C-alpha cells in the first residue's frame, strides 16, 4: 500500500534544468495512439456505398458528435471544430478504458494528461472567441460589469482549466485508488471486477463525455 501516489520517472538533465518524463504515462499514451490508429485504419480500409460493420460504426460515431457540436455551435463552426471534438472523445474514452486491462494504466490518471488537454481547450476557446468577435470586443468582456472586476474575471477563466482537468483526473485516479485499496483488503475476491466495470467503463465513459462537452461549450460561450 506504500506505493499510493508513486510514479516511475526518468529525469534528464538539460542545460541546468531537469526534464522529468513519466515513463508509464508516455507508454500508455502510445498504446492508446496505436489502438486509435488501428481503429482508424480498420474503419476506412474497405469503403463502399453499402457500409460494412466498421464503416457503419465510424460513420455513426462521427455523425453523432458532429450533431452535438452543431447543437452547441452552428453548422459552419462545427465543420471547423467537429474533428477536434471527435478526436478528443475517442482519445479520452480509450484512455479511461485502458485501466481495466491488467498491467495497463489510464494515462488520464496522471494529472499531466488532463491538464494539457484542458490548457489546449482553453487556448482553442479563446482563439475562437478572438476570431469571431474581434480582439477589442474580446478584451472588453473582461471589464464587464465594472472595470475593477478584471482580475476576478481572469481568475475565473483560469479556474475553468483547473476544474475541467481536475474533474477528469480526480474521477479516474479516485477510481483506481478505490480499486487498489478494495483489492488489497478483499484479497482481490469478487469485488474488483465489479468496481473495474463501474469506475473504468461507466464513470470513464461519462467523464470522457463530460470533458468533451465542456470543451465544446467553453468554445460556444466564447464565440456567442
Amino acid at each position, binding site marked *: *500500500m*506504500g506505493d*499510493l*501516489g508513486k510514479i516511475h520517472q526518468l529525469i534528464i538533465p538539460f542545460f541546468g534544468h531537469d526534464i522529468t518524463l513519466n515513463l508509464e504515462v508516455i507508454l500508455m499514451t502510445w498504446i492508446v495512439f496505436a489502438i486509435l490508429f488501428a481503429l482508424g485504419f480498420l474503419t476506412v480500409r474497405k469503403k463502399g456505398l453499402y457500409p460494412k460493420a466498421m464503416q457503419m460504426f465510424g460513420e455513426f460515431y462521427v455523425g453523432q458528435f458532429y450533431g*452535438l457540436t452543431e*447543437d*452547441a455551435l452552428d453548422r459552419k463552426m462545427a465543420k471547423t471544430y467537429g474533428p477536434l471534438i471527435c478526436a478528443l472523445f475517442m482519445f479520452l474514452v480509450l484512455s479511461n478504458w485502458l485501466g481495466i486491462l491488467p498491467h495497463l494504466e489510464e494515462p488520464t490518471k496522471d494529472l499531466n494528461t488532463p491538464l494539457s488537454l484542458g490548457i489546449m481547450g482553453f487556448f482553442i476557446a479563446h482563439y475562437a472567441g478572438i476570431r469571431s468577435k474581434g480582439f477589442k470586443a474580446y478584451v472588453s468582456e473582461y471589464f464587464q460589469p465594472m472595470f475593477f472586476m478584471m482580475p*476576478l474575471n481572469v*481568475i*475565473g477563466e483560469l*479556474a475553468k482549466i*483547473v*476544474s475541467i482537468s*481536475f*474533474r477528469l483526473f*480526480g*474521477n479516474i*485516479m*479516485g*477510481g483506481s*485508488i*478505490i480499486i487498489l*485499496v*478494495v483489492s488489497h*483488503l478483499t484479497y482481490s475476491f469478487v469485488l474488483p471486477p465489479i468496481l473495474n466495470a*463501474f469506475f473504468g467503463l*461507466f*464513470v470513464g465513459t*461519462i467523464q470522457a*463525455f*463530460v470533458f468533451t*462537452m*465542456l470543451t465544446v*461549450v467553453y468554445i*460556444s*460561450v466564447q464565440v*456567442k
Partner: protein
Amino acid sequence: MDTDVQTIIRGAAFLGAAMSMGLGAVGAAIGEGYTAAQANDAVSRKPEASGDILKNMLVGQAVAESAAIFALVIAILLLFLDVPVHNVLEGAALLAAGLCMGAGAVGSGIGSGFPGGQACQGISRQPSVMSRLTTNMLIGSAVCQTPAIFSMVVALMLIFMDFGSLPVGPTWAALIGAGLSTGLAAIGSGYGGGLAAGASCEGISRQPETVGNVTTVMLVGQAVAQTPSIFGLLVSFVLIFKAFPASSMLHAAIALLSAGLCMGFGGIGPGIGNGKAAEGAVRWVARNVAFSGDLMRIMLVGQAVSQSTAIYAMVVALVLIFVV
C-alpha cells in the same frame, strides 16, 4: 511517551470512525426517504404500474445508499486497521479522514435521492419510457456520487499515506484542513448535482423524445456544479503534498486549518446554486428543446457568476496557505 502516542492515535481513529458513519448516515437516509415518498405518490396515481415503480424505487435507493456505504467502509477501516505508529500526525490524519468522508457523503446521499424520486413519478406518468428513465436516473445519480468519491479518495490517502517524516508543527493542521476542505465542499456539489438529475428525469417523462439533449445538458450542468468540490480537492491536495517547514507557532497551523475551512464552507453555497441553475436549464430544455443551445449557454453564464464566490474562497484559501 509511546503509550501516550498510541492512545492518542487510537482515540483519533475511533473519533474519526464515529464522525464518518454518523455524518455519512444523514444524507443517504434523507435521499432514500424522498425517493420512497415520490414512489408512494406515483403508485397512488397509477396503481397498475406499482411493480415497475417499486423496482425503480429500490434501484434508485440502492444508488443513493452507496454514499453511506463509502462512509461505512472508511469507518470500518478506521476501527480495525493497524496503523504504523510514528507520531501524533497519524492521529490527525485518521480524524481528518473520518471528517472528510462523513461530511462528503451528506450531499451526495441527499442529491441522488432526487433522480430516484422523479424517475418513479415519471414512470407513473409515462410507463412506456421506463427503461430510458431508469438509464437516465442511473447516470444522473452515479455522477451525483462524484463528490462523495472525491471525499473517499482524500480519506483513503489520509489513512494510507505515510506522514511519519513530516514535522508535527503545522502539519497536523494541514491534514485536518485537507479533510475539511474536500468534505465540506462536497456537500453543496452533491446536493446540486442531484437537483439537475431530478429535473432531467422529470423532463424525460414529459417529453421522451428529448432524452439526448436533456441528458447532455444534465451532465454538463452537473459537471459545473461539481466545480466547487474540485476546488476543495485541489486545496486538499496542496495541503497534503506541500511540505510545510517545521514551526511551533500556533498561527502558522491555524492558517492551514482555516484554509481548509474557508474552501470547505465556501464550496457549499456555489454547489447548490449551480445545481439550481442546472435544474432550471434541464427542466426547460425538456419543454422547449429547439432552444437547448441557448438554454445551455445561459445556464453556463449563470453558473459562472454563481461560481465566483467559490473562486473567492479558493483565492483566500491559497493566500492562507502560500502567503500568510
